[in-house]
Every structure is written in C-alpha cells, then in structure tokens.
C-alpha cells in the first residue's frame, strides 16, 4: 500500500553547512532521509516500501549541482542531473559517463535523477555505477567534520550497504583525467532499447603502453552481483600481455572466477554470464583494433 504522503515532513536547508548540521542532529532527533531528484525515492513511497517519516530536501543547495573540469579531473556535484551531465561541455572527456547518462530512464527521469542519488540508491543495476568504477572515481562524503574522500570501489560493503556514517552526505564525485591511449566501452544490455533495467551493464577502460602490453585494465560490471564490482581476475589476465585473440579467450575464461550472476525477475544467471563474456570480448576486440590502427 502507498505510504501516506500527507504525514511526511520535509526540512529544506538553504546551505550545505545547514544540511550537514541537520544530518548530524538527526542522530539524536531521529532519522532524516536525503531527498534529491526523487526518482527512486518516490517509487518506494508509491509502492509503500519506504516508511521513513522525515526527509532532508537538497533541492535548494545550488552548489551541489556544479559540474567542472580542471587539471585534476572532473568534479560533479551530487545533485547534478543526468541530463546536465550528458549536456555539459566539461564531461566531454569521459564519454562513458555521457553515454550512461543518456540511457538511465528516459528524458523525464534524466531531467530529475541525480548522480548522487544513483550512488546512494546503491542498486546493483545502477547504470552510472560501473562507469564510476571504471574511471576510478572518488566519492566526497560531507559531514560536520569536513569532507572525506572515499574511493568509489570501497563505497559498497554489501547489497545496498554503503560505507558512510549515518550523518554523512554524498556531496560530489571526482573522476581523474583519462590518460592518453586509453580505450573505453560502455555497454548496457536490457530487454529493450529505452527505459529498461539492465540485465548486464559494463564499463571498461584499457590502456596499452607504447611497448604494446596492457598496462591498465578496469572492467566494471552492474547487475551481475549484489553490488557493482570489478572483475579482478579478468583484469589480471590482461595486464602485462599484448592484445591477441588468445588473450581475449583467457580474459573470458577468467571472468568465471569473478562473477556468478543470479537468476531473478529480469534474467537468468546463465544468460547474464554468457552476455558478460560476449560484452567483454567485444570490448577487447574493439580496443585491440583501435590500438592496432594507431
């Protein structure tokens, strides 16, 4: 049954400092749930699965919408919408992020849903999450104690569990600059082209050094485990070797040590694994062709 929306309270801080103070005070005054774009939160409220009573509305915190690129990379405020991320000139150097931003829901969702919200919602199928992992993103968690940096790969400790203190708020994400000779691929596989929840979602980054060997490999996955994760065994199989058909086969085989997807309402584990292997092979072949063409 739908949650009785008329009984819910909203606090609307005017500054980030005020928001963090309210989060801190919530430790003694009772739980305060952050509200960003609401595209997940209202689904839970409409379904009656979210029973929290007090919400911290972040919509007045304009500084959290900022997107800017500098020499240290790209900083995206937690409240930046996927539409803003897809359009902003500063995101051009991180093409997988733009691609993911354009396949998360449709226009109606992209105009509201935020990067911080996608991270906090912590769905294993969150489409921006493998991208953040592949680019080596850092999460900035704000609190009354200051801003703490946390590698994105250390954020999830289990199914929908975040390594954040109860009073911490995700304020921004930074993506380091992408080194030259890096090839990337973002690939989402769902039931249909638009508006689908991923059966498998992949983001990969691969770099080959001037001597021809792979010296950087990040293969990140969504919808194949309880959290977004990297396939470390497949990455290990690639590092130090020259791209070749045999290497593609080795990486595909190694993937079995990394993931064992489950059957659920959207897909079967066996199918997911077969798709993941095919997507990995596609990435390695296209990346290899790209390197050879240079």
């Amino acid at each position: 049954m739908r949650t009785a929306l008329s009984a819910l309270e909203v606090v609307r801080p005017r500054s980030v400092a005020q928001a963090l103070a309210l989060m801190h005070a919530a430790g003694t005054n009772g739980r305060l749930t952050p509200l960003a774009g609401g595209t997940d939160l209202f689904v839970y409220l409409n379904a009656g699965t979210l029973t929290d009573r007090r919400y911290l509305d972040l919509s007045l915190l304009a500084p959290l919408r900022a997107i800017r690129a500098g020499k240290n990379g790209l900083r995206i405020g937690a409240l930046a919408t996927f539409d803003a991320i897809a359009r902003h000139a500063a995101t051009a150097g991180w093409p997988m992020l733009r691609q993911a931003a354009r396949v998360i829901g449709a226009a109606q969702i992209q105009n509201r849903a935020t990067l911080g919200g996608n991270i906090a919602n912590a769905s294993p199928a969150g489409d921006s999450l493998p991208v953040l992992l592949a680019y080596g993103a850092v999460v900035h968690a704000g609190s009354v104690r200051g801003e703490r940096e946390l590698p994105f790969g250390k954020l999830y400790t289990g199914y929908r569990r975040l390594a954040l203190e109860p009073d911490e708020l995700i304020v921004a994400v930074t993506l380091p600059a992408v080194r030259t000779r890096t090839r990337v691929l973002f690939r989402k596989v769902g039931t249909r082209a638009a508006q689908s929840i991923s059966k498998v979602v992949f983001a990969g980054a691969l770099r080959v050094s001037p001597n021809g060997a792979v010296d950087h490999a990040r293969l990140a996955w969504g919808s194949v485990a309880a959290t977004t994760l990297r396939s470390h065994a497949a990455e290990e199989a690639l590092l130090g070797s020259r791209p070749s058909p045999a290497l593609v086969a080795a990486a595909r085989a190694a993937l079995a040590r990394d993931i064992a997807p489950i059957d659920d309402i959207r897909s079967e584990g066996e199918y997911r694994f077969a798709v993941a292997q095919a997507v990995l092979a596609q990435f390695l072949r296209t990346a290899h062709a790209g390197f050879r063409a240079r």
Partner: protein
Amino acid sequence: MSPRVRLAMTVNGRARRVSVPPMKRLLDVLREDCGLTGSKEGCGEGECGACTVLLNGAPVNSCLVPAVHAEGAKVVTVEGLARGERLSALQRAFVERGGSQCGMCTPGMLVASLALLAEHRGRVPTDAQVRDGLSGTLCRCTGYQKIVDAVQAAAAESAAPRRPARARRPSRAPGRTASRRAGTAATRRRAARTARKRAR
C-alpha cells in the same frame, strides 16, 4: 498532524497558490488542488509517462515530484496546450493522424512531444529522434507510428514558413523554404518527405 506548506507556482501561465503536504505528489496537486485532471497516473513509478508535465520547461514524471519542488516553478500540463477551444498545432496533428487511441497516454505524449519540438526548434526530428524523445511515454495501444507521424507533421508545420514573401517565389517548391532554414541535406530530405506526406 499533517504538515502543510504554502506554495506559489505558475501553472499553464496562471499564478496558483496551494496549501498542501510538502511530499504530496505534483501529479496529485495538479489533479486535486488545481482541478487539472488531464495528467494521468498510469504506473506511479516513472515508467509510463502518462503523468508527464513540463517543470520549468523540462519534461518530468509528475508522479515522482514532491510538491515542494514545484515551489516558484513554471508548470505546463496538457491543459496548457490549447488556447480556449483552439487546439495547438501538435494537438491537431494528433487528431488528424490518429495519434490518439484510448487516450490514456495522450496527455503525456503531447507534453513530451512539446518538449521534443522545443529541443528541435525549427527542424523536423527524424523517426529515431522522435522515438528517443518519446521513449519515456508508453502507449498501451502500441499506436506509436501514428504518434511519430503526428509529431513530425506538427514539426513540419511549425518549421514551414508562414511569411508570404518567401513562399511566393515561383521557382521554389513548398517544403523547400523550410529546408533551407533547417540546413543539412538529411533534414531537407526529411522535410520534403513530410511535406509530401502532408500533401496526401
């Protein structure tokens, strides 16, 4: 005790003041507090788009928007398209081309199409662009082709010049003036195709 907030917003060009619970859905504020029942609830989870409205010009699912986020905002619902009894070009195109069957998705389709036309201002969007732009609005009758046709027809109409000075030039076929403004060869082909379709 239920908390309430006083909100001021502009709906379809008219200033509105409502006193509502802060987390009440914008969809319900529009339907219950503003009496605008054109926006529909289909799924209540941001999938079907029947509740699509423009919030400060951007299409959103009003079933996922808390009332407080509409404070000071400009909202456009399907009721904002017509001028009195006079339908907008987009609405006429839907009527003329059978873009509406059971009608459940039509308010959302029209509002999403309005945003799409604004995005492609002066150009006729391709089939793929229309389908992408409307991908957040589902038609349970599956009458998508006629919806795409209607949106392109409306786009062609708004892209076509109304100024007689240009259209009167004898050497120029109808449709071509529009394409000159639009630019690329692909757009020209599309505009010509749409013009042909319209002439049928």
